């Protein structure tokens, strides 16, 4: 059995502000295999974004440790890129400029090649010289994914990346993300509060409780892609999670 790509061991996170401590993460232990697509699912504010930031190295856990490739995580690293919602895109750079952002150590010719490749991959041809204010929300999100992929990271962390998009664009973007994932097979950890989104995308769904967050359940989604969202197995898994979280079925 291969060593897991990412190992979180007994991670606790307590925020202290003005003398008051708020526990946010409570004894989180989790393993993610190489090339896996894992969703962290939970209500807003439960701490899943905090967990993701800790995994990416932006925060240090109060206790416990995160290991990636068996090395303890000390800080952010280009081998694991965090994708924010489209607000992470740099507005003073063009589409090309953004994608080339992390490639400053490459020679110019190779940089241009890579940029062209990823522009095509996310479907932004024709917009190379455009600036972000001219792009729609979905296009900006794609730009941010392209920027992340251009540096060829091992892992991608996505924090509710489609949250600011309308529901139709969201469906389209989910398909795009899966397409890219199947082409490049990065390890992806994806935070969302949308149960359907989690079941549609992930290999495993980590259901998290409200703050202080613990792992309530890990659900294995054993349906092969492309997933039929009206298939009985899909509905079964989805309803199971609904019940886990304790939500009523009828509105």
């Amino acid at each position, binding site marked *: 059995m291969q060593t897991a790509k990412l190992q979180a061991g007994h991670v606790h996170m307590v925020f202290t502000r003005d003398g008051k401590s708020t526990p946010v993460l409570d004894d989180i232990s989790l393993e993610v295999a190489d090339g896996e697509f894992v969703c962290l699912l939970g209500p807003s504010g439960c701490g899943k974004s905090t967990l993701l930031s800790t995994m990416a190295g932006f925060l240090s856990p109060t206790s416990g440790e995160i290991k990636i490739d068996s090395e303890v995580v000390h800080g952010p690293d*280009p081998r694991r890129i965090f994708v924010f919602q489209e607000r992470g895109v*740099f507005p003073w750079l063009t589409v090309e400029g953004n994608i080339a952002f992390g490639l400053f150590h490459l020679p110019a010719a190779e940089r241009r090649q890579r940029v062209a490749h990823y522009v095509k991959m996310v479907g932004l041809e024709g917009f190379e010289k455009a600036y*972000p204010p001219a792009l729609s929300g979905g296009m900006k999100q794609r730009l941010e994914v392209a920027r992340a992929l251009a540096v060829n990271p091992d892992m991608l962390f996505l924090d509710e990346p489609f949250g600011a998009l309308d529901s139709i664009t969201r469906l389209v973007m989910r398909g795009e993300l899966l397409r890219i994932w199947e082409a490049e097979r990065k390890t992806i950890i994806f935070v969302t509060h949308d149960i359907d989104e989690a079941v549609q995308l992930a290999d495993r769904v980590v259901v998290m409780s409200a703050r202080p967050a613990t792992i309530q359940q890990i659900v294995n989604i054993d349906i092969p892609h492309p997933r039929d969202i009206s298939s009985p197995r899909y509905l079964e898994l989805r309803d199971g999670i609904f019940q886990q979280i304790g939500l009523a079925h009828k509105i």
Partner: protein
Amino acid sequence: MNSLVEPKKWEKFFWPMLTTAVFLALWHYSVVWTATKIFPSPLDVKKGIAELIHKNVLWGDIIDSLRRVAIGFGAAAVIGIPLGLILGWYPAANKVVNPVLQILRPISPIAWIPVAIILLGVGDHAATSLIFVGALFPIIVASVDGVSNVPSVFRLAGRNFGLGPARLLTRVVFPAALPKIIVGLRIALGIAWLVVVAAEMIAVDSGLGYLVIDSRNSGKRYDLVVAAMLIIGLIGLILDSCFRWLEKIKSVRWGFRDES
């Protein structure tokens, strides 16, 4: 915004021309009707400008004023922007320096004139130092403001891609703060232009400000006084427009989405 009838395109030229024409007419006729011997009419002013150009005085004065502004403002930018960037980047340093800045800021550059004259004597250096002092504070304040308001996502993303502190400052923090810095520069330039005129009225003997005072003192040439005033206004307007044009450049325009 409230007139529900959309103004036509020609109106954009019509209305200002109308008001200017009315204004000039009022000016002209009030001079004629009061039969004043001193206050110039618009035509007198026009002749005054021609005379200044003819005597080769005007260009020299304009260049003198612009030169002082260029040096004083340039120095303020070169020192103020990096200083502001550092203070904005290290809030601890800012907490220490800020009170000093807040105390010095309300002291008008004009009030510094005596000190400048004491230290540097009457002349170019005094004027340029005054412009420097006047322009410095808005630039520092704007730079600090620009840096402290860089959204943390940008810094986090920069670190994520492996940028060291130097690259982070030049490739993320500076471009992100640039719109606010440019606004600060524009305001500082406006102040510099006001200060140069004031300084030239008191501390030197060339330049547009001096022209205003001198025209009155040596011969009550109010036509030249008004001519000089209008030229001051015009050049100030041109300088401001240059900066507003800068603000429209695409890699900076994103920061001005809400400005009219």
